[in-house]
């Protein structure tokens, strides 16, 4: 019987965040940050976007993307400071994960408001 640790679950969150942000964020940024504003691709209308966001499944996917990407960032940033710059302080840990929780809450609030 293998002893239960929390680390595998935390790593799965971290890993899922890495995969999702690497797969989806670049295409979203390319579309909404560059291609639509520069007119390379005709953007969907505001009403159409709102209708897509009105679907709870869309909002759930976006919330998952935001939460997992933030968890990934928090863990990576904390360890970059810890392993790379040898900065270890409980405050750094609290700020990193706290920022991820705050960002997740903000994402949830905005997604709730928009539709």
């Amino acid at each position, binding site marked *: 019987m293998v002893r239960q640790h929390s680390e*595998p679950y935390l790593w799965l969150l971290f890993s899922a965040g890495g995969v999702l942000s690497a797969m989806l964020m670049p295409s979203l940024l390319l579309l909404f940050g560059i291609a639509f504003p520069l007119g390379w691709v005709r953007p969907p209308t505001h009403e159409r976007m709102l209708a897509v966001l009105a679907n709870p499944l869309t909002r759930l996917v976006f919330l998952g993307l935001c939460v997992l990407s933030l968890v990934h960032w928090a863990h990576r940033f904390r360890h970059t400071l810890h392993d790379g710059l040898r900065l270890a302080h409980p405050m750094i840990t609290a700020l990193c994960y706290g920022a991820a929780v705050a960002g997740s809450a903000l994402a949830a609030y905005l997604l709730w408001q928009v539709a």
Partner: protein
Amino acid sequence: MADRIKLQVARYRPEREAEATFDEYEVPCPKDWVVLDGLNHVKDRIDGTLAYRWSCRMGVCGSCGMMVNGEPKLTCATFLADYAPGPIRVEPLRNFPVVRDLIVDIGDFMRKLVTVRPWIVREEEKPLSAGEYLQTPEQMDDYKQYSMCINCMLCYAACPVYGLDPLFIGPAAIALAQRYNLDSRDEGAAERHRVLSEHEGIWGCTFVGECTRVCPKHVDPAGAIQRYKLTAAVETVKAFFMPRGA
């Protein structure tokens, strides 16, 4: 190109000095000389008391690893001319206790290595008369990359996690565990899992990736660790949902 180059070599003689100092030697710098040739020149012609390890001088034995200008390198595969005009700073491998001059104590690595059972484990050995354990080329490809490890410990010198937490089992031990886990003839994955799935096993790794960057044999220990993290995470989730086994 200059025909000579300066080596700044770390010296530590515990009977004489409490801390390491640097001695400077000027050595010839032909284009085919490596750092180890320079050290051998010092030992043979200038200062016979210089202590360092080496054996094969062809990147196979893994004993001549040292820090060259702050980077972990096999000194038999690191050309002096690439550092011209110098000087070149040669130090013992980082993250290990120094025994003397450029020699480090590798006991910690050797003790950790055996805990992952880096050999083929069988629940039951076949009798000799039953013949060989056959393996297809595809099955060999699964682990071949990890079998290239020469235990040179450059990855330990490069790993900041090992530097901060000496209990961390380290990149080469995990890569070698994977070498046997992925071998179709092996049946020892469960035993290795007990060691690897601890905090000091794979979870200590924060995927800095320096181990893979410095590996002279392109083993990719960081990749081995991440692959095993997925295996271990899936095993943990399975054990949580099916505590009595599937």
